[in-house]
């Protein structure tokens, strides 16, 4: 499984041609195809290319919504 550093993850912010990846509890998910992650932004508050582990605690949904997305790697560091 590919390993991402936080810096590498940040480059996958969904802007321009970059895919949109987000991390949660060490796993990196590809959310590029999601209607709700257009241009790497989610609900005006969250950006792709980041670790959303702590943000998800305050979200109106749980991590089960990530299960539909492909895991493309693990977050290291």
């Amino acid at each position: 499984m590919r390993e991402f550093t936080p810096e590498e993850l940040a480059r996958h912010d969904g802007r321009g041609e970059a895919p949109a990846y987000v991390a949660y509890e060490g796993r990196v998910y590809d959310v590029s195809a999601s209607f709700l992650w257009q241009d790497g932004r989610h609900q005006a508050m969250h950006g792709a290319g980041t670790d959303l582990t702590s943000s998800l605690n305050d979200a109106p949904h749980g991590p089960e919504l990530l299960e539909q997305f492909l895991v493309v790697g693990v977050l290291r560091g």
Partner: protein
Amino acid sequence: MAKVAREMVERAGINVDQLLELLVKNAAAELTTYYYYTILRANLIGLQGETLKEIAEVARVEDRNHFEALFPRIYELGGELPGDMKAFHDMSACPPAHLPEDPRDIHAMLTVLVEAERCAVRGYTNICNLTAGKDHRTYDLSLSILNEEIEHESWFSEFLGEGPSGHFIRRGETSPFVSKFLR
């Protein structure tokens, strides 16, 4: 714009531009859902479709009312609706409630309907969480909409056999919670 009203929200610590983006996205979700539910309702035919048709229609009309209630608040806070309707559609807070491949598959129709409502429930829960105790008017509005979206979800969830909702179809007025914003 209501200049002092916006200032009060800012002073309470809310990022008003971020809140406006959320309100615009949710307004887009309401208007697009109204459109897509029109198609869904039109395709609820036959014996099974008939059982759902009236409830789908109530949800459809109430979602339109949610749009009507939301957009004045957007302008009060100094925001605006996008000038381009296609762009407005694409910025929706929820995915389009497209007609399933087989509209005669009542389970597929119900899944589209219930998932649209669930997205709305999450969206307004989020706005309520952000505004509680800080932006009283947006909180009141979002809570009113949330109450109706929860009822929409519960209707469709019950039809899916997920459990009793405790609700009946509406008797009497539409938008019992949101109507006060539609004067």
